[in-house]
C-alpha cells in the first residue's frame, strides 16, 4: 500500500482514522497532565474548578506553587547538576570511544564493540544494583584495610552520576560515531600536508566537524539523565533528584503541584530539543 497504488476509499479512511487515533493516544496523558496544572482544586481531577496560576506562583498553604516549594526546587537543582556531570563525562568518553573504533584496527575490536553496546540490553535496575554492590564491596574493603570510609562510594550523588554515566555513554558513543563515520579523512590529511600536527589537525578540522554531534549527544545525555528513574532509584542517597522526589510525593497522593512541575519539565525538554534540532540544521 503506497500512494501510487490506488486503494479503495474505505481502506484509506480507516487507515487515516487509525493514525489519528494513535496520535490521540500519544497526546492524551500529557495533555491532561498539562491542563490540570491550572485547575483551582486540591486534586488533579474533574470537576473543573476554574483557572488558576496558583500551582506555579502560589505562596501560601494549601496552594504552594512550584516556585515557592523549596524541596522541589532543590530537587530540580540536583537533577541539573547530575545531568551536567553525566553529559560532560559521557560526551568525553563517547568521543574517545568513537575515535578508537573509527581510527584503529586492533585485536579484540569486535569484542570491545559488542561490550560497548551491552549496557543497552542490561535492565537499568540491574545496572543500579550491580554498581551498588560493587561500590560497597570496595568501600567495605577500604574500611577493613585502613579504616578509611569512602563516603563517595555509599549511595549518593556520586554513585547516581556513575550509574547513569555507565549506560548513557553508549548512546553518546553511537551518536558521535555516526557522524565521525561520515567525516572525509582527506580533509585531515590536507591539514597534515599543510604542516599541522596530528592534534592540531584534529582540533581545528575534525572537532568542529563533529560539533553538531557533540552538542546533540550532550543534550540527549542530559535529558536521559534528567528523566532516568530505575538506575537512580537504586543508587540514590539523601539528595533526591527530581524524578525520585516526584515519585515519593506521588506515592503519598497527588496535587496539581505535580502537574505544574511536569508541565515545566515538558516545556524545558521541548526547548532543549528545539535547540538541538537548530544546531543539527546548521
Amino acid at each position, binding site marked *: *500500500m*503506497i*500512494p501510487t*497504488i490506488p486503494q479503495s476509499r474505505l481502506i484509506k479512511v480507516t*487507515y487515516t482514522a*487509525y*493514525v489519528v487515533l*494513535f496520535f490521540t493516544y*500519544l*497526546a*492524551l*496523558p*500529557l*495533555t*491532561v*497532565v498539562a491542563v490540570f496544572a491550572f485547575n483551582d482544586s486540591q486534586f*488533579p*481531577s474533574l470537576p473543573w474548578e476554574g483557572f488558576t496560576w496558583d500551582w506555579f506562583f502560589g505562596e501560601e498553604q494549601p496552594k504552594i506553587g512550584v516556585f515557592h516549594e523549596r524541596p522541589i526546587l532543590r530537587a530540580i537543582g540536583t537533577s541539573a547538576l547530575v545531568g551536567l556531570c553525566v553529559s560532560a563525562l559521557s560526551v568525553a*568518553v563517547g568521543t*574517545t*570511544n568513537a575515535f*578508537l573504533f573509527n581510527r*584503529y584496527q*586492533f585485536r579484540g575490536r569486535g569484542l570491545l*564493540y*559488542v*561490550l*560497548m*553496546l551491552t*549496557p*543497552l*540490553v*542490561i*535492565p*537499568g*535496575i*540491574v545496572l543500579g*544494583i*550491580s*554498581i551498588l*554492590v*560493587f561500590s560497597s564491596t570496595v568501600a567495605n574493603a577500604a574500611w577493613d584495610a585502613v579504616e578509611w570510609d569512602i563516603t563517595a562510594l555509599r549511595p549518593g550523588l556520586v554513585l547516581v552520576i*556513575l550509574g547513569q554515566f*555507565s549506560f548513557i555513554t553508549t548512546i553518546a558513543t553511537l551518536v558521535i560515531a555516526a557522524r565521525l563515520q561520515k567525516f572525509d579523512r582527506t580533509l585531515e590529511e590536507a591539514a597534515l600536508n599543510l604542516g599541522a600536527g*596530528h592534534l592540531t589537525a584534529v582540533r581545528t578540522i575534525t572537532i568542529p566537524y563533529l560539533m553538531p554531534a557533540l552538542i546533540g549527544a550532550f543534550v540527549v545525555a542530559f535529558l536521559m539523565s534528567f*528523566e532516568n*528513574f*530505575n538506575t537512580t532509584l*537504586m543508587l540514590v542517597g539523601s539528595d533526591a533528584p*527530581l*524524578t525520585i522526589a516526584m515519585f515519593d510525593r506521588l506515592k503519598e497522593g*497527588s496535587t496539581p503541584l*505535580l*502537574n505544574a512541575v*511536569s508541565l515545566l*519539565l515538558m516545556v524545558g*525538554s*521541548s526547548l*532543549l*530539543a528545539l535547540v538541538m534540532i537548530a544546531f543539527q540544521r546548521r
Partner: protein
Amino acid sequence: MQAAQRLGFLLLVTPLLLWLGLLIIIPHVDMFLVSLRERVGVGEYATSLANYRSFIDEPLYLMTFARTAVMSVMATALTLLIGFPVAYYIAKMARGRVRSALFLLCLVPFWVSELVRTFGWMILLRETGLFSSVLQWAGLADAPVEMLYNDAAIMVGLVYTSMLFMVVPLITTLDSLDDAVIEAGYDLGGSGPSILREIVIPHAMPGIVSGSIVVFMLSLGNYLTPIMLGGKDSLWFTELIYSQFIVRFNWELGAAFGFMLLILSSVIVWGTLRVTGQTLEKTMG
C-alpha cells in the same frame, strides 16, 4: 610515528576499558559472587546456591518471574502490532511537511520523564479520573469506575512508555524500502497482504528486531509503571529486587534476583537475534 600511534591508541582505549571494566564487567561479576553467598552467622558467609534455591522453592518468586517475562513479551508484541501501521504510514504514505511533523510528534512524548507519562495515565484511569467522569456523564456508568490497578492498566502504560523505541527503528528501515519494489510486487500480481508478508516485513526485519529487543528490555526492567498502575496482585520482578535490596536489606537474595533478570533478558535477546539471523552490532550500532 609508530610510537605516537601507539600512544594515541593507549590514550583512547584507556577510558573505554575503565568504563567497561569498573562500571559494567566487574560490578556484574561482583553481583554474581554476592548472589552465591549464604549468610551463616553474623558477618560470616559460605559459598552456596542457597539464594537460587530459595528463588526456585518460593512460588511467589517464580510466579512473579514468569509473569513479568510473559507480560513483557505481550507488551512487546502489542507495541509492534500497534506501532507498525503508524511507522508504515509515516515512512511510506505521508509526504513532505506532514511526514516530518508526524515524526516529530512521535518523539515529543518521550522527552518528558516516564514518571510524568505514568502520572498522566493515573489521572485518566483512576476512579475520580477523566475516563470515569466521561463515562458517567455519558450515562454509560452510574458510579465511578476504577480502571487503574490491574494488569490491563500496566499493559497500557508499558505500551505507551516504549512506543517510541519501536516506531523509530521501524520508520528508519521502512524508509529505505524503495517504492518501486512494492509496485513491482503489485505488477507481478501480489495482493496487499502477500506483499506485506513477502516484501515489507522481511525488509523491515532489522527494525522489528531492534525495536522489539529495546521494548522488551524496557518492559522487563520497568519499575515505575507496574508499581503505579498495577494493583496489589500485579507484582513485577523489579519490585522484588527493590524490596530485597532497600526494604529487607537482603542483598544476597536481591543479587540472585538481579542475576536471574539479567539471564532472562540475555537469553531472550540472544534467542531473538539467533532466530531472526541478526547481530547485536547490526541492530543496535
